[in-house]
């Protein structure tokens, strides 16, 4: 078949017209001639807790207080002490848990703070009668750290808005 000349284009044109006709017959007409749409959106921030810790040290005693900012949300608080020296930890409202954390019982509302958590550091005296017992003991001039870390967890509620008991993550944080 030649590819030039006006007679050669007719089969192609005819095929295109036939295809268009078939599509026109098989295609669906536009039945949805009246439609309407309405749309709206909204958003809210999941506010996280904003807390801070303050400490005082004196007389081999470290005292810490955790404060919940006034723009924060109600939180549960717990703290943990890491020390290379023997310590005695205590505080009103603070309960010792088995995993080494001290949990503050009451909910700390925005703008309020916990009671003091007191860490009393003890410096054991050397045993002059048993020098071997002092191998791991503190040495004069040596530096030691007493670190207090804390976690604040937003209070959660059930469907009716009743505050639920705190459920701390397993393992705890740093």
């Amino acid at each position: 078949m030649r590819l030039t000349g006006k007679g050669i284009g007719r089969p192609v044109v005819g095929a295109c017209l036939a295809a268009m006709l078939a599509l026109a017959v098989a295609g669906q007409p536009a039945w949805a001639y009246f439609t309407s749409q309405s749309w709206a959106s909204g958003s809210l921030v999941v506010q996280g807790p904003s807390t801070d810790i303050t400490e005082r040290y004196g007389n081999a005693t470290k005292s810490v207080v955790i404060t919940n900012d006034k723009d924060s949300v109600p939180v549960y608080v717990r703290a943990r002490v890491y020390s290379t020296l023997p310590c005695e930890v205590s505080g009103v409202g603070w309960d010792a848990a088995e995993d080494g954390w001290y949990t503050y019982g009451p909910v700390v509302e925005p703008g309020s703070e916990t009671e003091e958590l007191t860490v009393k550091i003890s410096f054991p005296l050397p045993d002059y009668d048993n020098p071997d017992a002092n191998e791991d003991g503190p040495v004069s001039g040596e530096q030691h750290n007493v670190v207090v870390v804390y976690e604040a967890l937003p209070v959660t509620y059930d469907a009716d808005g009743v505050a639920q008991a705190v459920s701390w993550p397993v393992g705890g944080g740093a």
Partner: protein
Amino acid sequence: MSMGHRAGTGARGSGRIGRSRRQVALLALAATLIVCGTAGTAFAIPQIRSRFFGAQVRLASIETALMENGTIVEGEDVLLTDLTGGEPLELGRSYQEVLSACNVGDIDQYVRVSVYRYWVRDSKEGTAKACDLDPSLIRIGFVEGDGWTIDRQATTPERTVLYYDRGKLPVGAETTPFVDSLAIDARVATLNGYKDARFVVEAQVDAVQTHNGERAKVGAWGKSGPNGSV
């Protein structure tokens, strides 16, 4: 002079004559048409006129609206404005949030809704969708079985599509609620990444005319219902 030459000359000569006759004929036809056209108008003299009869045709209007807690809302950042009453959002608590659709047009309509939920983060560079946060933690209380059916095939963790299954929605009528509550899962408190994130809820109502309704629904929405034909 040969016969072929003479014949060839004669053929050329008859050709010229034929063309000129055709041209004359076409000119005559054109002139006739012109004369008939202009002459005809000369006889169109108004003899009598009737009163002027006017008619006005107004197309029916289809219009649908989204309602939140009984109030029509439309646009960006208009939903959830009073969800917590101005208090901080309490994780886990179920807040009342009633969404429905209303026919505010002139004709009956078929209705479906699409509800979207997702997390975003705001930063100095702008707002970006947080694809790493789970949209299912935005717990929307869909009301199924009371006038609405969820299209499970079209539903994803982010989008839920519901069809109004009580047939036509008459003019001025309001549907039953398709959402009645909203809560943020309490697990958000212990999961990473959700602090100061923002959750977004979007609702879109689609309506189509009831005339040739089944075909209209397929044409507009791709299907006539949650289990309908495509």
